[in-house]
């Protein structure tokens, strides 16, 4: 896990750091699932997601919004996302298990992913992300 929850009064602010953009997006997905369902998440069900966007901020926002949608509607809690980004095209293969109230309790529903406070950058060592989930 290479993300932390940073102090934010009203919502959940996540800061992630990863060696590649692909890993950064994967960590963001992991953070979203952890906020909603906690740490106990396993694999078994595979889903694929493809996104095209106009810029990198929209790409992560649309990706996480789609994960949120699939998770809620299909009742899947994802444990892992393998992300491949080429330009502004994203392909992700997600691994998860069916939602189980007894196992995946204790989280908070995420209502949406916000552009406010969203930043993606990089230095010589890593790609960095700040993102706010409305809860």
């Amino acid at each position: 896990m290479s993300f932390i929850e940073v102090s934010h009064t009203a919502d959940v602010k996540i800061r992630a750091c990863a060696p590649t953009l692909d890993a950064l997006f994967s960590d963001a997905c992991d953070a979203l699932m952890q906020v909603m369902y906690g740490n106990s998440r396993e694999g078994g069900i595979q889903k694929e997601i493809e996104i095209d966007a106009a810029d990198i901020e929209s790409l992560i926002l649309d990706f996480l919004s789609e994960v949120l949608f699939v998770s809620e509607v299909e009742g899947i809690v994802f444990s892992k996302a393998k992300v491949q980004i080429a330009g502004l095209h994203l392909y992700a293969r997600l691994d998860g298990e069916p939602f189980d109230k007894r196992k995946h309790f204790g989280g908070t529903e995420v209502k949406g992913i916000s552009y406010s406070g969203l930043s993606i950058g990089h230095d010589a060592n890593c790609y960095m992300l700040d993102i706010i989930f409305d809860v």
Partner: protein
Amino acid sequence: MVILHVMPGVKQINTYEWEVPVGTVANMRVPGKFFLSESLGKILEPGAVQQLANVATMPGIIKNALAMPDIHWGYGFPIGGVAAFDLTEGVISPGGVGFDINCGVRLLTTPLSKKDVSGRRDLIDQLYQAVPTGVGSKSTLRVDARALDGMMVKGARWAVDNGYGIPRDLVRCEEGGSMKEADTRAVSQKAKQRGVPQGGTLGSGNHFLEVQIVSEIFDDPAAKAFGLAKNQICCMIHCGSRGLGHQVCTDHLKVLEGATKRYQIKLPDRQLACAPIGSPEGRAYFGAMAASANYAWANRQMITHTVRQVLARMYHIDYEDMPLVYDVAHNVAKFEEHMVDGRRRKVCVHRKGATRAFGPDAPDIPVELATIGQPVIIPGSMGTSSFVLRGTAIAMERTFGSTCHGAGRVMSRTQAKKSLSGREVVANLAKKGIIVRGPSDAAISDEAPEVYKPSDEVVRVVHEVGLSHRVARLEPLGVIKG
């Protein structure tokens, strides 16, 4: 005050009123204005003031970008933000409404008194069993695609027509529990898919169902008119439009991002993405938002029905003896008429974490309350007071008929988890005679009384400024957390 140091330009106008002058951020069209006491000022984040200044840059904004005393740092608009826009020059923005469209609160009275409910864990347990709460919860009521359409088009009226309430409930809802501008064609299939299984569910986070007691009456005639008496047991329901509203916001934010560029609107925050009110994109968002608002009203009406069923079964009281005081939205945009520079104008008012507080003789308040003003319901947090207030003429003049919506957080979730365990919170509340049920320890510690600003102080400021007047205070006896 701390805000003077963090935002050098901010000016104090009088005891409770502060101005954010044009120029605080580039391209502001009007000044920002917020209402705050000295003690609330000490916990105000600079980011919230910055967000208020950002709102003032939006095209067609009228008079001021406003914020109520529960102002805090959100996304797009600050929470507690209010702004009205001209119908020709102005814009509509999901950032001024939020993801949880028509998150709101309603208060239901009962003929019960404290002795009937004191220490009755079984009452809280039965309510907890009956109303689905928490992440991943699904409705126990029958909602199919046709019912969903009914909820989106007719709101609380659909619920009443389908046996989830009584006609009088509709009189006691803002907008009669239904916005006529709803356009279900602008609601995506994805949003509808999320809406079907969640009709009649509470959700999570700060949403709750509380059993409360009226502990203090401030205004006898108004309390009587609202149907409230000291020591009376009431139920408060706080929730919104669930995944359907969240998806509508997400979908339309994307469309409006494109529209912002197309209409060459310059904004300091992408979350403020907007379009002219009369544009196809603006109209589509408004129609979808109204449909989501209606879904939320139907949802609160369905939960009301479930609560009444539990109380009727346990205490053998008639459904009609549990009337609704009122239902208010606190995340919504509306077309309303207001006096602007001495002229009556139709404007588009955005309220994000703010409550409509129409004064006496204003339109859309129940006839029997015309001389009193609209009931305003302000939820507290688990251990603190909730309030009923009434709308005022001052609110009509100064804030487009708006007031605060709640206490507003002061402690982050990360801090809350570190400093408070759910068990401690439950034990502390039990000492005060408050029973809490929630899906987990974390959900409870996240929403502990300590994480919120004192609701008393927020309400005192709106009362002193005259944006609404205190009618009654309610204390929690039992809390069901979402």
